[in-house]
Each structure stands twice: as structure tokens, then as C-alpha cells.
């Protein structure tokens, strides 16, 4: 067309069942180069990349559609896939060609979706992946024969090893695609007549021209609650709705049940098509996978392996990432120190060091844990164990209305809620997914540990309770338990209110075990880390800056002058050895005074009536507000408020002593055992973590859920702290 750019990018979609190697094919064809974005209005990721090796003047774009078992879509993921294939999405053009990835070792079921897609009126190609597995299972597949029966080009491949993909690439580059065929599977005549009738009505309705297509009418008739029917009713209104139910009635009256019609006919066709094309061994071969499963899902061994594996994962996230976190901490500390030395003291220095560096550091510090967890998740997912973990844990989780799929996200959250929330993507059911996302932050993550360590060390007596179990350890354990115990009723309530509905069925494929492709695993890690840094990072960073400003301003010079006046005499008296110590003490007092009259300090006074019943004074209230970006910030803030110097950490005996010695104006100690317990319980249950909230926002694509999380968790934390304080104060007094 004149005026239009000569180069038209050909668009190719990848479709297929989950676990068929779609991601691997995508990566091989694009050379591990993907651009990710979101489909408008839904939280489904859109992944696309250019075909590697395509000539520059004929670019080819490959879009990876979410894996699905059928076109009659249910989850948001599946709907996007179906929408794109049916040409119903406005933000995604219909592809020029669909590459259907099918697992050659499991052809019957894979061909169900494949033949559905082949009838969508887009040219198709069938990639028979996992040919190596098929061979191992002694299945002989005649690809040419299959191609004749299905009337589409068929390419046998082993995506994990890159075998056969050159032929696919050549085919794509050549670009002369076969014609699409409209109907492959033969349906009963009464059905075909119904399709014709419905088509006529659609043509006469208000639906756009593009909706009057046979494949849409067929899908609308076959799927009871499908996407095609929904889209047709949206534009066709009353007329189409009547025609649809009349056509259905006609089919039912002829003795065909609509529910089972498609499955019966389609699977019948597939059986026929595969006859003589796939040769099976007489007896089913016992595969390695079967043998592994006999151990891994065994009553005793399976449970044992499972528990051991989970302990290793947890331990790894917890301790393997610690050295890396220390390094990151050190690097940012060093950077801060250098900057402080270069930039002269004042607002700019404080902004750069306490705001920017500390803010960025607060984000990056989570990276080792996230990478570590996702490494395990990727490995377990790719090798096929994840489905088994869901299988093993489903019973327990179904008691609170969730399913086995929620297990990994919950476990991950004990390390850090951020990867936990991100891991909920594997949960198909939206209600389950959201419930899991909302309770995951209740699990005690590693950021709570500094808070617990500090307060337990300072206030819980070192006493043995029974045998070798000490009171301190027991308190720590109790803090971890609090979150779990509270999560149970919360999940039940959420599933009864916001996410009401019957417990979704668990129909979960247990794919054969496979050796994970290292490149794919690493690539996935990289992708997820990037997503975290980019999206969550910006929000956390912004919040950190705001909190910094609130703690820094206003800053009138008179505060410093007053304190310097007070110290005048002491400074003059001090000998040369004592002088630095006195000066340091003065500087700390000045810092404390500034903080007290900063915006944050004033907010502390404002919330004082609210935190009084918890046994707190305004300083603790203020430190809690300051720790909104991240829980562990409270340790540093307490350090500043109680004039210890801002480089306090939970190990510093100085800070412990300071807290022990802190006094109310009337001379009574600020921190008692009940106060310490109340603070710990508050931090166990609260949502003081901007990063988690940012990730919830990103994953739900709405501000509503992070706000909700924050509100309900803060309320719970307040109630919990209140109860613990009042009860323990009553008992101990």
C-alpha cells in the first residue's frame, strides 16, 4: 500500500499446553531475547521477541501466549491466549501464523488444543517437541503421516537441545505459509446447521464484520461459558442470545449433549488421526519418571524428601544469601561513607546518604534472597517437582479454602514476602491467587528477625524452660507461629467474603520429571530479578525519600545552638582524652533533638493516643511510622531516637542497654517485657514493608489490594499488640 512502510513485521504466536516446552522453544527461536509487558486491563504478561536469524528487511515477531489446555478459557491467562487466537483483542493483532507446541510423548491430550487452534482460521504449524522423551518411551511417531492427517506442516523437534529448530526457522523466514483450514474435525450435521443459523444472526446483528466468522460461531456454541460466546453476546445482544440458545436447543433435541459434544467428537477424531501414525509398545514402558515418583510421592519417603527439601530451600534463602546481603550492605555503607566524605554536611549530604543511598540499598538488599528463592522455584518447577509439592500439600491447604498451589508462595514468604507474592503467578484460580497474596505477608519474613533479635536480647530473660529449650528461643518461635496462626482465620474469612465461591477444583497435571535447562533457568532468574528491581524498586525508592524528608525537616539552627550552649561548660572542662567522647555525645543529642521536632517526630506525638494502649510512648510510635518502607528500619530509628548514633544495629549492646535504660519522664522504664512483646507482635503482623505493597500493586494491577493489605494487617497488628500488652501486663504485674 502506498504511504505505508514497506517493511511489515510478520507476527507469529506460540500456543500450546503448559509444560510442553513453549518457553524453551521461544528462547531458542528468539535467542533469549524477550520484551515483556502487560496486556491492557489484565495482569497477564505479554512476552514477545524477534526471530533470530530473520533478514532485516523481513522481521518476524514471536509472541509467547500463556499455556492452556483448551480454548474454552477460564483463567485470565487462558482468556488472553484464546482472545488473541480468535482475533478478539484490540491491543494484539491476529497472528499471521500460529506455532503450536505439542508434547510428542503425550500427543492425544496435546492435540485437543492443537486441533482447536487449527480451526481458528489462522495458518498453523505443529511442533512435535520432546521427541527424545517419546523415543525413550518407545513411541514411534510418523511425522509425515501426522501432517497428512492434520493437513498442517509438522516439525519434530527437541527444543531443549535445539534439534530440529533450524528447519522451523527456515520455514518462518521463507514466509509462504500454508492456507488455514476452517474445519478439520467433522461434527454432526445438526451442529453444522446450527453454526450456519447462528452465523446468519451474527451477520444481521450489530456485531462488527470480524465477528461473523464460522470458527467464532462454533466456539460460541460449544463452550458453555466460553469467551467467544461472551464476546458475541456483548455486541450482538438479544438477537444473538436467542439464536444461541435456540441453536443449542436444536442440538440437544437431536440427542447430542452440548457439554460433551466437543470432547467426544474431537477426541474421537484424534484417536483416528493417530491410528498407525503413533506406534506404542505393547506394554507401557515404566519410565524413570514413574520410578522417581514411587519414591517422591511415597507415604513415608515422599513426605521425608518433601520436608527435607523445604528445610533446605528455607535454609538456603535464609543463610546462603546472608553473605551476599552483607556484601551489598557493605558496598552501600561504603558508598554512603565516601559520599559523606566528599559532599559537605547539610541537607544535600543527608539526602544523598540517608535518602538515596539508603533507599536504593534497601531495595537491592533483597535481591540475593529473591534470586536464591527463584533459583529453587525455577529448578523445582522445570523439573516437575512443583506439581508434586502441590499434590502433597493440597489436603492441608484445602482446609482453609486454598489449594496445594498456594504452598510454595507461602513457604517463600518466610524468607521474604516479595518473591512469595511473585510466586503466586502459578496459581490459576484468581480467588485463590489473591487470597494467597494477601496472607503471604503474614508469614514472618527475614526482615522481622532484626526486630525480634534486638527486643528478645534486651528484654526476655535468658532462662531455660524445659530441657535445652530457652525462653528466648521459645519467644522467637512464638513470633514465627503468630503469623501462621493468624493467617488461617484470615484466609477463611477472605474466602468467605471477597473471594467467595466454591473451592475450585484441583485438576493438576503431574508432568514427567525432566532435567531443567540451565540456560532457561538462569534466564528466568534474570527476568524476574529485573522485574523486581524495575517495578518495586521505583516505589520503594520514592517512599524511602519521603520518609527521609519527614525525618529531616524542619531543621532550625536554634536546636543545635541550644544544645551546644548546654555543652559549652562540659567541653571546656573536658581533658584532651575525654574531648572526642563528649563531642560525640553532644552530636548524638543534637541528632535526637532534630528528630524529635521533625515532621516525623510530630507525627509520633499525633499517634501517641493510639499507641498508648499498646504500652508505647510517642517515640516508639514514631519509629514505627518511620519503618513503613521496611520493618528493620525501626532498629536504626530507635537507635537515633534514643540518642545512640544512627549506625546502631541489633547486635550493638549499646542499643540494648540504651533501650533498657530508657525512662519515661516520671522515671519508670519505657521498655518492659510486655512492651517488648507488644512491639514484636505488632511487627509480626503489620504490613510495614513498602516493597511488599509495591509488589502486590504490581501483581494485582490495582491499588486496592495493597491498601487493603496494609489496612487489615495494621489493624490486626494493633489488636494483637493490644491483647498481648494488656494480658502480659496483667499477668506480670
Amino acid at each position, binding site marked *: 500500500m502506498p504511504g505505508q512502510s514497506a517493511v511489515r513485521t510478520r507476527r507469529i504466536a506460540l500456543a500450546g499446553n503448559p509444560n510442553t516446552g513453549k518457553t524453551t522453544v521461544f528462547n531458542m527461536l528468539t535467542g533469549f531475547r524477550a520484551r515483556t509487558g502487560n496486556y491492557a486491563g489484565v495482569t497477564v504478561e505479554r512476552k514477545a521477541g524477534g526471530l533470530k536469524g530473520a533478514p532485516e528487511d523481513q522481521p518476524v515477531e514471536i509472541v509467547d501466549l500463556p499455556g492452556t489446555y483448551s480454548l474454552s478459557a477460564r483463567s485470565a491467562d487462558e482468556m488472553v491466549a484464546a482472545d488473541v487466537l480468535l482475533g478478539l483483542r484490540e491491543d494484539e493483532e491476529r497472528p499471521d501464523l500460529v506455532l503450536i507446541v505439542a508434547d510428542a510423548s503425550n500427543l492425544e491430550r496435546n492435540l485437543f488444543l492443537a486441533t482447536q487452534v487449527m480451526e481458528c482460521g489462522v495458518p498453523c504449524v505443529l511442533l512435535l517437541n520432546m521427541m527424545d522423551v517419546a523415543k525413550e518411551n518407545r513411541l514411534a511417531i510418523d511425522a509425515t503421516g501426522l501432517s497428512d492427517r492434520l493437513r498442517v506442516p509438522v516439525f519434530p523437534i527437541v527444543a531443549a537441545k535445539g534439534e530440529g529448530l533450524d528447519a522451523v526457522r527456515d520455514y518462518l523466514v521463507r514466509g509462504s505459509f500454508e492456507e488455514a483450514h476452517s474445519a478439520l474435525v467433522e461434527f454432526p450435521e445438526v451442529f453444522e446447521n446450527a453454526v450456519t443459523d447462528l452465523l446468519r444472526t451474527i451477520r444481521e446483528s450489530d456485531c462488527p464484520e470480524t465477528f461473523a466468522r464460522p470458527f467464532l460461531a462454533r466456539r460460541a456454541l460449544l463452550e458453555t461459558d466460553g469467551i467467544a460466546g461472551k464476546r458475541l453476546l456483548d455486541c450482538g445482544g438479544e438477537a444473538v442470545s436467542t439464536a444461541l440458545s435456540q441453536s443449542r436447543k436444536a442440538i440437544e433435541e437431536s440427542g447430542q449433549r452440548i457439554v460433551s459434544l466437543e470432547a467426544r467428537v474431537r477426541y474421537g477424531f484424534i484417536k483416528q488421526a493417530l491410528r498407525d501414525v503413533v506406534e506404542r509398545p505393547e506394554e507401557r514402558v515404566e519410565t524413570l519418571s514413574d520410578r522417581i515418583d514411587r519414591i517422591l510421592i511415597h507415604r513415608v519417603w515422599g513426605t521425608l524428601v518433601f520436608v527435607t527439601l523445604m528445610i533446605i530451600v528455607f535454609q538456603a534463602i535464609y543463610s546462603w544469601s546472608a553473605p551476599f546481603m552483607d556484601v551489598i550492605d557493605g558496598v552501600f555503607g561504603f558508598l554512603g561513607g565516601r559520599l559523606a566524605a566528599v559532599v559537605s554536611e547539610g541537607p544535600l549530604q543527608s539526602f544523598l546518604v540517608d535518602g538515596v543511598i539508603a533507599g536504593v540499598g534497601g531495595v537491592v538488599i533483597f535481591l540475593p534472597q529473591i534470586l536464591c528463592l527463584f533459583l529453587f522455584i525455577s529448578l523445582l518447577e522445570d523439573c516437575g517437582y512443583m506439581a508434586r509439592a502441590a499434590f502433597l500439600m493440597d489436603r492441608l491447604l484445602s482446609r482453609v479454602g486454598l489449594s496445594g498451589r498456594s504452598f510454595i508462595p507461602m513457604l517463600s514468604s518466610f524468607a521474604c514476602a516479595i518473591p512469595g507474592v511473585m510466586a503466586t503467578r502459578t496459581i490459576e484460580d484468581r480467588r485463590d491467587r489473591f487470597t494467597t497474596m494477601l496472607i503471604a505477608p503474614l508469614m514472618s519474613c527475614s526482615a522481622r528477625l532484626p526486630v525480634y533479635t534486638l527486643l528478645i536480647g534486651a528484654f526476655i530473660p535468658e532462662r531455660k524452660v524445659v530441657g535445652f529449650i530457652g525462653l528466648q528461643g521459645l519467644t522467637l518461635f512464638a513470633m514465627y507461629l503468630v503469623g501462621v496462626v493468624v493467617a488461617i482465620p484470615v484466609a477463611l474469612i477472605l474466602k468467605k467474603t471477597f473471594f467467595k465461591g466454591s473451592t475450585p477444583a*484441583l485438576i493438576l497435571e503431574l508432568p514427567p520429571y525432566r532435567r531443567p535447562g540451565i540456560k532457561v533457568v538462569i534466564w528466568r532468574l534474570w527476568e524476574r530479578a529485573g522485574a523486581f528491581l524495575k517495578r518495586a524498586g521505583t516505589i520503594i525508592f520514592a517512599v524511602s525519600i519521603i520518609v527521609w524528608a519527614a525525618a529531616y525537616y524542619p531543621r532550625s539552627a536554634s536546636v543545635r545552638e541550644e544544645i551546644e550552649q548546654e555543652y559549652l561548660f562540659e567541653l571546656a572542662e573536658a581533658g584532651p582524652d575525654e574531648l572526642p567522647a563528649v563531642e560525640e555525645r553532644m552530636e548524638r543529642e543534637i541528632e535526637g533533638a532534630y528528630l524529635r521536632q521533625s515532621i516525623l517526630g510530630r507525627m509520633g506525638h499525633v499517634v501517641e493516643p493510639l499507641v498508648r494502649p499498646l504500652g508505647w510512648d510517642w517515640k516508639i510510635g514514631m519509629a514505627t511510622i518511620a519503618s513503613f518502607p521496611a520493618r528493620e528500619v525501626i532498629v536504626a530509628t530507635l537507635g537515633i531516637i534514643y540518642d545512640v548514633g544512627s549506625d546502631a544495629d541489633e547486635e550493638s549492646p549499646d542499643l540494648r542497654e540504651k533501650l533498657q535504660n530508657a525512662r519515661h519522664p516520671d522515671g519508670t522504664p519505657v521498655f518492659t517485657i510486655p512492651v517488648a512483646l507488644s512491639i514484636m507482635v505488632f511487627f509480626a503482623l503489620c504490613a510495614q514493608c513498602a516493597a511488599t505493597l509495591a509488589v502486590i500493586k504490581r501483581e494485582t494491577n490495582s491499588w486496592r489490594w495493597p491498601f487493603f493489605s496494609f489496612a487489615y494487617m495494621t489493624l490486626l497488628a494493633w489488636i494483637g499488640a493490644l491483647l498481648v500488652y494488656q494480658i502480659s501486663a496483667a499477668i506480670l504485674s
Partner: protein
Amino acid sequence: MTGPARLVDLRPGERALIRDLAGEVPLVQRLLEMGLTEDEEVEVVRFAPLGDPVEIQIRGYFLSLRKQEAAAILVEKI
């Protein structure tokens, strides 16, 4: 043995032919799409250590279902 049984009543290792799917339409449709059509052979492979869900083999692959769903699948033992 004759007469319909429920899939959930089979013991591990037992095989049967699917006769009918009872239950709500979305569930039935989902099961059908996964290949649990009439006259197809299924085998109960094992139950999870906690008793639920159940793993079955159908059309050469493995699928896990809750007992509740497996109870909706009527079969004839072979």
C-alpha cells in the same frame, strides 16, 4: 464386577472405563477437555500421603484430582 462405581472407590492399580461424569457443568467440561471422555480407560495410580488428592493415569499421562472430583466420575471396573 459390573455396575457403575465411582472412580474414587477404586484402589491404586485398578483400572476402569469411564461411563459418565456427574457434577457441575464447568467441572465436567474441564474433565472432558483433559480427556476423561466416555469409554476411555483410567487407572488410579495412588492417593496422596494425606489421603487426598488422587493421582490417575488417562490417555498416557498423569493427572491429579481431589477425591471430591473423582467421586463425580462414574466408571466400570475392568
